């Protein structure tokens, strides 16, 4: 490695950056599909409010703040005038001050005024608490009036916080499950509640948004009980419908402040697409590797780069690649301990960190600041997230470069063809339905636990009569007692316990290296990321997992230097609960109902890192994870299945199975007693037995692996034919599943994370027949799948359009995906199914 090129801070960095980027992209063979120059902006300023208390003014001056941006002043004025406010200015526009200032000013005048601030993650709350506390101290307020309070807060600190804190920084989960059910312990705090801050409110959409709305309703209700009537201050990334969204999840009509007056240097944004590696297969170089290559080269050119890798594993793999090229590479993600985060932020400021790899914008603390170039691997799922990430490009108003490396998936390829969607069109609308009946009922139950429900109470969009009816249902469920029209909770446990605001399983598994905690992973992911034998990348370095103890919630790791990766095999099984509701549609039956989704990690493969060839397969016994939720399935009828079976001629005679095939074949026949493993038919004159590869030959990189005895099975001709058709059915369904799941979020008001997909050639939900299932990842489900089922016809039309219109031969990640049997993408089968479902001619 050459001597380090110092990170330059010259004003000309950006043009250099753009020139460097273009040069490097050409070097890599990466196509620029769109380029936009965003003009610089001068800052517009306003003085501090004249009536700000002296101590606060001095504290601000001590932090170097003598004036405000126009938008900060506008927001602060509105809050102090008693309005509810929404601030949607960009990244690094000083939004925190917009709420810190009025709160501190108010608290200096009134020692009983309190504020509650909600953040989507604990890490964000902790970061904000430090800054807020420092400002409070500087203004002469007593220590301990600003406190973060969440699952990490030690129990011996909690009583003191309850007794003294005036500003509490926490998250919706803590409010929901710990604070509200014990509100009598918080009477002092709640009776003085003047402000509720909701940060990053755009994050609360779909199911999460519905839950936040429920929690906010309950909070306001309890506050009212103690005589408080707080105002709401919300911040958000750019949305297409900010005011509507605030009304939906916060229940308030806000004053909207959005003219961003912070100075900004010029910004260049490039959309790039990695080159095709196989035209027929439609495969491109992976976006992540491409992004890492580009970032590494830009770092060599002396730029500081921030890479958004989209996933934890992606971030780890990017770091490995980057470390081969340059020094000063760091990962920055939420599983890091607070001390490590501070260290990386310092290293960024000092220039020691040259490339920082993060997963998403939300995980960045406030002190990360800006960099010269931002490289995003794969479209982050929404324009709001995209602009939030690009917003980090450019330091302190100096120019910056943003590069989006498009991935191979359907949404990314759509953007490659329609870049205007990102630049010109209105940003997406955040949508959620807090009055969805199941969500509302969950929160009504929690509300009843908190305070008996009065006869004239309404809850969100439900009037008193409807609330009373739901109360009767709670009574019938054995959870409530109704007397004089009042609903009293009488269940024997917290209703809040059974309600998860986010996805299932918030438990964290600690990763231990030589007994020292180096990070955490959520329990469900732990099963397939740190199973025993897994090679797990932490901070870019490979570690071998020696032990996973789910009961104790720890995984023990050991550093290793294998040039090996592991990939776990996950098996999913979906069983119905009760009888699903059925509706006949063209070519299939649509089923909806409650299901149990069991996920089991059965084994894993070791792969050589560079070539990805399979080195070996190993079994695993881990307890499965269970999810009870709602699902939408469609079960193709016999005619459709027959079309599936006929589609895609499968010829297996022409394959060359390698030099040791005759021996392997003979061994399999001998092992199976020269009889079909399925029906027992023996070889006889006229009947020749076949030896079938369970996992198709094409999936393997070496003939030797493909021909292992445990992958071979003896079959008679008709069983062989049936097995091959089974493969086809499986691939066809899986292919359709991929396409539909990619498109579902465009139709249904949710996040892609809210849905899981599973294709099963013999599904218990469809009485043993083939079925494609889409299930909700939130426990209990919320009705998204019922909505999808209602729009079944639209969905299959759109899926057919996507798959039939794709330019690849047999299927690719942009249409039917890598799902299905390895080695067989199933595009033809998918089209056959979709034709049958839409009634198009084959």
């Amino acid at each position, binding site marked *: 490695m050459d001597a380090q090129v110092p990170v330059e801070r010259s004003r000309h960095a950006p043009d250099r950056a753009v020139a460097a980027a273009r040069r490097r992209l050409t070097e890599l063979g990466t196509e620029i599909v769109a380029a936009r120059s965003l003009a610089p902006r001068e800052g517009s300023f306003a003085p501090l409010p004249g009536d700000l208390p002296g101590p606060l003014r001095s504290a601000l001056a001590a932090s170097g703040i003598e004036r405000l941006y126009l938008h900060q002043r506008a927001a602060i004025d509105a809050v102090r005038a008693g309005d509810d406010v929404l601030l949607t200015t960009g990244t690094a526009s000083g939004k925190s001050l917009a709420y810190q200032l009025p709160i501190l000013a108010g608290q200096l005048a009134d020692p009983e005024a309190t504020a509650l601030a909600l953040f989507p993650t604990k890490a964000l709350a902790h970061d904000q608490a430090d800054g807020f506390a420092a400002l409070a101290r500087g203004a002469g307020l007593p220590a301990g009036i600003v406190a973060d309070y969440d699952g990490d807060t030690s129990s011996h600190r909690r009583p003191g916080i309850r007794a003294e804190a005036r500003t509490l920084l926490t998250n919706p989960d803590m409010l929901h499950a710990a604070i509200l*059910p*014990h*509100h*009598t*312990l918080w*009477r002092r705090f709640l009776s003085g509640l003047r402000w509720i801050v909701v940060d990053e409110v755009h994050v609360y959409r779909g199911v999460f948004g519905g839950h936040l709305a429920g929690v906010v309703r309950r909070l306001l209700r309890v506050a009212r009980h103690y005589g408080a009537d707080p105002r709401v201050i919300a911040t958000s990334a750019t949305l297409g419908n900010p005011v509507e969204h605030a009304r939906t999840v916060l229940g308030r009509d806000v004053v909207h402040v959005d003219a961003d007056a912070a100075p900004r240097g010029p910004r260049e944004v490039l959309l790039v697409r990695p080159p095709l590696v196989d035209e027929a297969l439609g495969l491109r170089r992976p976006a992540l590797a491409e992004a890492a290559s580009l970032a590494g080269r830009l770092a060599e050119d002396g730029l500081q780069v921030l890479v958004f890798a989209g996933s934890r594993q992606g971030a780890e793999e990017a770091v490995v690649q980057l470390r081969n090229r340059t020094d000063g590479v760091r990962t920055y993600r939420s599983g890091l301990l607070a001390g490590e985060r501070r260290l990386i932020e310092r290293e960024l400021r000092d220039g020691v960190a040259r490339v920082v790899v993060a997963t998403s914008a939300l995980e960045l603390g406030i002190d990360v600041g800006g960099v010269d170039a931002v490289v995003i691997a794969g479209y982050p799922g929404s324009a709001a997230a995209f602009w939030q990430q690009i917003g980090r490009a450019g330091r302190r108003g100096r120019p910056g470069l943003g590069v989006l490396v498009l991935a191979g998936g359907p949404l990314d390829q759509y953007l490659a063809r329609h870049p205007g969607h990102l630049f010109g069109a209105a940003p997406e609308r955040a949508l959620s339905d807090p009055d969805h*009946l*199941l969500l509302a*009922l969950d929160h009504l139950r929690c509300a*009843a*636990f*908190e*305070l*008996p429900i009065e006869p004239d109470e309404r809850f969100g969009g439900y009037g008193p*009569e*409807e609330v*009373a*009816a*739901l109360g*009767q*249902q709670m*009574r*019938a469920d*054995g959870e409530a*007692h109704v*007397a*004089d029209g*009042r609903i*009293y*909770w*009488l*269940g*024997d*446990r*917290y*209703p809040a*316990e059974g309600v998860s605001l986010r996805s299932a399983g918030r438990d964290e598994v600690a990763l231990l290296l030589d007994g020292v905690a180096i990070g955490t992973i959520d329990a469900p992911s732990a099963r397939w990321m740190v199973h025993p034998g897994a090679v797990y990348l932490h901070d870019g370095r490979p570690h071998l997992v020696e032990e996973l103890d789910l009961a104790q919630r720890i995984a023990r790791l050991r550093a290793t230097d294998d040039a090996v990766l592991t990939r776990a095999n996950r098996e999913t099984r979906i069983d119905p*609960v*009760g009888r699903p*509701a059925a509706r006949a549609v063209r070519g299939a039956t649509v089923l909806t*109902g*409650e299901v149990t989704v069991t996920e089991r990690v059965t084994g894993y493969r070791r792969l050589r890192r560079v070539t990805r060839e399979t080195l070996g397969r190993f079994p695993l016994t881990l307890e499965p994870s269970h999810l009870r939720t*709602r699902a939408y399935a469609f079960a193709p009828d016999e005619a459709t299945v027959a079309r599936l079976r006929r589609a895609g001629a499968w010829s297996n005679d022409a394959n060359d199975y390698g030099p040791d095939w005759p021996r392997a074949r003979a061994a399999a026949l001998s092992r199976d007693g020269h009889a079909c493993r399925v029906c027992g038919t023996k070889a006889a004159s006229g009947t020749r037995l076949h030896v079938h590869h369970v996992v198709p030959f094409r999936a393997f990189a070496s003939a030797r692996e493909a021909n292992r005895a445990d992958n071979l099975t003896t079959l008679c001709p008709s069983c062989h034919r049936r097995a091959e058709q089974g493969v086809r059915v499986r691939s066809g369904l899986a292919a359709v599943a991929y396409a539909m799941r990619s498109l579902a979020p465009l139709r249904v008001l949710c996040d892609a994370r809210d849905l899981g997909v599973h294709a099963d050639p013999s599904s218990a939900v469809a009485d043993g027949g083939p079925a494609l299932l889409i299930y909700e990842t939130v426990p209990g489900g919320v*009705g998204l799948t*019922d909505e999808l089922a209602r729009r079944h016809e639209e969905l299959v039309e759109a899926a057919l359009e996507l798959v039939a219109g794709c330019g690849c031969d047999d299927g690719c990640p942009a249409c039917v995906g890598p799902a299905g049997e390895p080695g067989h993408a199933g595009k033809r089968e998918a089209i056959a199914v979709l034709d049958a479902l839409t009634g198009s001619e084959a």
Partner: protein
Amino acid sequence: MSDLLDRLRALRGDAAEAEAVPEPRAPDPAWGGVAAQLGAASVVAGNGVHLVRRARLAHGALHGRWPVGGGGLHPWLGRWASRSARAVPSRRASTPLDDDRAKVVYLDTETTGLAGGTGTYAFLVGVGTHDADGFTVEQLFLPGPEHERVYLTALSERLVGATAVVSYNGASFDLPLVRTRFAMHGLPDPLEGVPHLDLLPLARRLWRRSLPDCTLGTVEREVLGARRSARDVPGAEVPARYLAFLRSRDARPLRGVLEHNRDDIVALAAMRSRIEEMLTPEETTRTTARPQPTRDALELHGLARWLEAIGEADAALAGYLAAEDRLPDAAWDAARLLRRRRRFGEAAARWSRLAADGDARAWIELAKHREHRLGDVSGALDALEAARRCGGTRHDDLERRRARLLARAARDGG
């Protein structure tokens, strides 16, 4: 509204429409029927009803082998209880805790769930008090959450003026729950600033090593020698029975719950007198059968540790000395206190005995004793060597000491 509920059922995937839960039979306004079922009296206030059941035990009545006692708390128990009251001067007891006129109140609740929080009700509160002639248990029963305000007012009357409250695991459950109920109605908290004697931590210190667990039932059976009737209701069923009562207004399934609660209060009083016997010098005079020596020693040791924790070092030392022959840990603690009082020779005697049994730490103490008290450096080195041979101590720790001693020997001896 049936549309709404139909939609709800469909979304939840409920089976066919469940049977409607019938409205409960309206009770007579004074709840006389329910009161009779429970052997209680009903008290009607302006806007609600509560039920009261009374039981009375004569002075000296036994629960198992122990009397329910009486009078003020032993001063040491009082000191332990006062720690919990925090420095809130508002409700200092006007009567010292050990005065016979002090009002010691025993408290135990039955609730609609174990979750605590604002949605859990204490539908039954048992309150036990002493007077000159005996012991009274009053049980307040809540006929329904809509009556809670008058119920709490009645409870407040029983608790006001209490100089101490005694419970079992009340610190983490019963008391916070009761105080939450008062807070929910905006009523003043009668327990604010009242010293709380939670017997569970004490019981653990005394009997954890001798018993399979320290639940009230186990302690009652094994230590107090009391047996309950077979009709005891398992704790897990209690909330469901109350809910069923609210629907049916048939209180008979709750009778067992009331008896259980009353027995708990009596057991608390008996446990207190059992513990107080240990604190009085005449503890040797007992009417019980011959105690097993090992259990006694463990109990003595636990008690001594507790006495040390509340600052009664003399009594603690006596306890350690009484148990040391049977329990090495007690010998160790005795040595520790003796050394603190500069009775080094006596401390060394204990260490010698422990060292002879192969305790490496005791050898190290002897090494320190020989070096600092006797000036015997070579003796100290011998002791370190013996410690090393016993094993189980940190090698680097021993090495450091040895090196220091050798350096000193070199300096002294030349």
